[in-house]
């Protein structure tokens, strides 16, 4: 029972994350969607190999999920720094345009 429940939850989380990654405009929310997506996949992976009756634990999916979590935190960090730098570059551009427009008005 728990296997089915968590597998279905994992898949639904994957689909939610996919939807967020595609639809939401704000870069931070897209990255949040990416994280929810990866959490969903890992939940599905461990649920797929979890056998409540025999109770023994298959270590390979857990190692895969550990690797996946570390890789997804690395991508999240890079995406966050990129979107911050992007915002900074956009603001510098806006400030420069404003300054140039001010000079033009002063010029006239």
């Amino acid at each position, binding site marked *: 029972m*728990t296997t089915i429940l968590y597998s279905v939850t994992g898949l639904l989380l994957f689909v*939610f994350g996919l939807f967020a990654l595609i639809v939401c405009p704000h870069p931070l929310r897209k990255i949040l969607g990416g*994280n929810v997506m990866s959490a969903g996949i890992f939940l599905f992976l461990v649920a797929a190999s979890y056998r409540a009756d025999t109770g023994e634990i298959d270590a390979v999916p857990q190692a895969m999920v550990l690797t996946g979590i*570390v890789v997804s935190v690395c991508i999240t960090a890079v995406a966050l720094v990129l979107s911050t730098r992007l915002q900074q570059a956009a603001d510098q551009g806006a400030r420069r345009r404003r300054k140039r427009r001010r000079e033009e008005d002063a010029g006239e």
Partner: protein
Amino acid sequence: MKMLLTGFDLLLALTLLWLAWQLLRSTDIFKAIIFFICFGLLMSLAWVRMHAPDVALAEAAIGTGLTGPLFLAALRRIERKAGKNMMSEPAGNGEETGSRWKARNREMSPLLWTVTALTCCLAGLLIWTVLIIPRPLPGLADQVAGSLAESGVNNPVTAVLLNFRGYDTLLEVMVLLLGAITVWSITHAPFPPRVPDTSPVQKAAVRLLLPLICLIGGYLVWQGAYQTGGAFQGGAVLSAALVLLLISDFLWLPGMRSLPLRLGLTLGPLVFVLLAGFGILVEKTLLRLPVEYAGPLLLFLEAACGLSIGLTLAAFFAGGRPASDLRETPYSGEAKGKGPAES
């Protein structure tokens, strides 16, 4: 007893789904991040319910412990630069704090309808496939148990992670270093101006917690060989200590030299590569450890990787390279000289 456990699972699963849905729908980004932190907490409980304590510890330490502050710091840098201090609270109990990218009221444009319909049928298809897949095959549990003895550690997950599939972990540690190099290549660490006097309570709390956190981090790294724990979880807890230092302005990153930081970042991968080379020299196969020395060698490897993972995750939180490294100044016409030599 079974009934209660299934009830617990059901409530946990429903809350996870509700949190994910709220994450999408909430108009305010800060609210979405707080939902994400709670999502990480409940995910750790889900891992615990599925008898995967190592993953629960990793999710708690990395998924919630570090990704939450990462998002919070990034939100402030994005919103502050957006010229609107969303965090400013008017007097009284304040009202809903919108953000620059106010998620426009979700008028269901036809495009949005098609995307929702497509994702719903994708979900249905996936769940249908899962339900009709017959009983899952035994997987690799017995092979792991069989050769656990020669792996030098008796925690099966660490055995698989470091010994049986050591090549995966080597590439993964390289991905972390790659992330750190990328973050350094994009910007300088954006630092708020130094607050004149940080509150004594903050300093006292950090001074009290710091040794304890380092102790717990070391304990987790050391314990990886026997029970739950390991280089990644221990490294994440160590990074929590560094983040606390960064927050309470004990460490002033702009003043740091970049060479020692770079050495710390590459320590783990370097030890891993040396171990792989050692495997070729001694055992004529890459990454193959002599059975009698496997235990201590793996412990040394875990310590090195834990340290460099801690530094890498703290570099992610800092969000850039130290200020003294590779400065960029706007080109001033006739200045033909070479760029300022970096440290």
